[in-house]
């Protein structure tokens, strides 16, 4: 039997899930934030984190250190969840494996964010 459907009927529902633009914009907006935040955070971290527990805890617990750590790590975890999602979608073809990795990616990013949030607030004074 031939396919009697019209060309339009054949492609309906197969294309974009209509959420790509939001992903694209979110990836870029978090990138713009990270261009500023990440160098600041890593330079401060390198300066304070290398000389023992007291200095590291004091830095992460200070107002500037805590806010900078939370801003940088929040933007980074959000940005990397979006980025790795695309990598998985591009290279993993098996539907089950793909779904499992996409879910794992979300769990890792969300779990790390909660862990970072708790840790920084616990150190804050």
């Amino acid at each position, binding site marked *: 039997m031939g*396919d009697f459907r019209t060309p339009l009927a*054949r492609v309906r529902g197969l294309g974009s899930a209509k959420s790509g633009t939001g992903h694209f914009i979110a990836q*870029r907006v978090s*990138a*713009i934030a*990270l*261009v500023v935040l*990440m*160098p600041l955070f*890593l330079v401060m*971290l*390198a300066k304070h*984190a290398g000389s*023992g*527990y007291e200095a*590291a*805890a004091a830095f*992460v617990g200070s107002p500037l250190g805590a806010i900078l*750590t939370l801003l940088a*790590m929040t933007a*980074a*975890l959000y940005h*990397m969840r979006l*980025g*790795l999602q695309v*990598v998985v979608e591009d290279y993993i073809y098996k539907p089950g494996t793909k779904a499992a990795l996409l879910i794992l990616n979300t769990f*890792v990013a969300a779990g*790390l964010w909660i*862990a*970072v949030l*708790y*840790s*920084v607030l*616990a*150190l804050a004074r």
Partner: protein
Amino acid sequence: MATKPHQPLSPHLQNWRWHATMASSILHRATGVANYIGAVLVSVWLVLLAAGPDAYGVWEDLNAGPLGILITLAFIGFTFSVSFHLLNGIRHLVWDAGIGFDAKGSNLRSILIIGGAVIITAGIWIVGGLV
């Protein structure tokens, strides 16, 4: 019409002649994944820090032990990874504005960005006196 759609296939890695724009494109993905691993480690480090001096001692002992040299090497790798992803990420943002698609300039910028990331890494570790 066939049941399986004939999707366009791009030639696989080994069929391409190695060139700068391709290297920078692949590096952007590779460094992105490496930075993901780096962010996991920073998160674990923050949790150890919050858990107190005893837990943090595990990290300090690891650094002082035989694995210390490997950790330093990983840090140098992460410095390059973040530097490259940041520089090439700025380039991606400029591309989004529709600027910077000429072939010759793209090749040059790929080389400059890879070189720039190496220079930043060397600057931080050698001039910064960390090594």
